């Protein structure tokens, strides 16, 4: 068993709790949403029965959406009111280095370059995921509210816009779901470095070795150049 000092605290308890809430709500939203989109398949019909009928399914979906929006609000508040959140947000903003990092990462993966690019706390991939997920939540949240209070919104908007909104909600959610399942689950489960699962979502920690490998610039900032 590795020594306590071999690990770095990466996520606070609050952040881990919000992550659990976030993925629970996303799983429920995905199930209730996809069963509506693919209501013709026998599997969806079976699940809709479990969900208590097609209208109750909608109620579950909206409840989960409220939870998702709450986690989003928690995140926004932490950016505005906590030093840690504020710093992280600034580190999340794309810089010129991210583009060169990405090109180098592709080169590395293709075997053209031997060394990995040197990442800070957030890699270019992580930054991209962050912004894509954030925008998806904003877009899905807004379009979801329009579907939730459709009569209210149709006092202002014509029907075709609501139909377009319905379409965008459905397509955007499917895209988000697929990216999340394919990419995120690969990164934290199938990825050979962490297989079968990265435990940091439970413990909030990563090993110093992992940090030196994946976030060398951050490691250097925290511990200097020593080899642990």
């Amino acid at each position, binding site marked *: 068993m590795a020594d306590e000092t071999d690990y770095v605290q990466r996520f606070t308890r609050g952040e881990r709790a919000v992550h659990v809430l976030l993925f629970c709500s996303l799983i429920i939203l995905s199930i209730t949403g996809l069963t509506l989109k693919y209501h013709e398949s026998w599997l969806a019909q079976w699940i809709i029965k479990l969900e208590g009928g097609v209208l109750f399914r909608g109620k579950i979906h909206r409840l989960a959406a409220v939870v998702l929006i709450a986690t989003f609000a928690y995140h926004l508040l932490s950016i505005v009111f906590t030093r840690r959140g504020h710093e992280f947000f600034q580190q999340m903003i794309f810089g010129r280095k991210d583009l060169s990092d990405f090109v180098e990462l592709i080169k590395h993966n293709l075997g053209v370059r031997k060394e990995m690019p040197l990442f800070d706390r957030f890699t270019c991939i992580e930054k991209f995921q962050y912004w894509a997920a954030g925008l998806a939540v904003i877009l899905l949240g807004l379009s979801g509210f329009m579907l939730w209070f459709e009569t209210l919104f149709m006092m*202002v908007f014509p*029907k075709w816009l609501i139909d377009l909104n319905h379409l965008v909600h459905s397509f955007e959610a499917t895209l988000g779901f697929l990216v999340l399942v394919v990419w995120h689950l690969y990164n934290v489960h199938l990825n050979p470095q962490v297989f079968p699962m990265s435990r940091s979502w439970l413990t909030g920690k990563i090993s110093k070795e992992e940090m030196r490998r994946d976030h060398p610039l951050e490691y250097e900032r925290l511990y200097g150049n020593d080899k642990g």
Partner: protein
Amino acid sequence: MTRVRFILPLCLFLLLPMVAGAQEQRCLMCHGKRDLRGTDASGGARSVYVSEETLRGSAHGKLSCVDCHLDVTELPHGKRLKKVNCVVCHSKGTTFDKGPAIEYLVYRDSVHGREMQKGNPKAPDCATCHGSHDVLSHIDIRSRGYRLNIPDKMCGRCHGQALAAYRKSVHGRFSGKGDINPPICTDCHTEHGIRRTIDPFSTVYATNVVAMCVKCHGDFSVMKRYGKKTEEVETYYASFHGVATKFGEKNIAHCVSCHGYHEIKPRDDVTSSINPANLPRTCGRPKCHPGATSNFAKGNVHVNPKSRDSGVIFYVAFGFKWLTITVLLVLFVHIFLDFARKLQEKKKKRI
């Protein structure tokens, strides 16, 4: 003596048709008079005249009076005769012991049959719809049961309001012109098994009525004759309303909720419930979208994202489809490269 024994039955046998004929003549001695009146159940006067010509021209033209009026055993007969029981002949097979005809069994459970059993004097029995002495086959153009006569000569005699609304509808106008394709009363309500709209077994019950409309509106060969499309069916089933109805929800809009039932009219008719000017009222019913504005009429109601006619919705759907495919392809390539590289490094480490 032997000769008499032989001749007497022969004479009787030969006389039989004459006797039977004489029997009819005996009935018509009274019932052949045009002004003959009897009293009905409520005590009012009612004509009991029977036109021999009508009877002979009917589907039952070869029967004699007492074949149906079984309670007439002597003349003059009693004051009140029983109602004729059609099921005596109209049973499964040729004899009564096999049970009544399926039409009767279905009728017995219908709203008409149930009202009859409750003793409602207005409830129709066989003769109310099919006629009594003038009963004709439904393929006879003079018959009440002939397809194009059903609205006016059969159902409409009692259901006058429904008939008036139907005659103004697109279905009623076409069938009134002699077109046999548009639905008449029985196409939606069925014939003998008519049930109330609140009866879950009714063909026009909330969750069954869509299937009723789809019989024709989902049939391309029928719709093309009227220059109509069938995509309204698919687009309805793909909508929130359609999905909910398909899963058995009763309080969600189905065809009838918006288009009406007897009074269905095309969109360009100003009195139609789906005329753009009337849509706010149709959609804005208290149970549906109270407070609906004219924005409800701006855009298609039956939206088909796969059709170019949907405009911007078509292009956005098309764009999103390819965006999803592209993103996933790029993602898979990226993951494959990343995976291969990391696996390679892991192997190196082990060595």
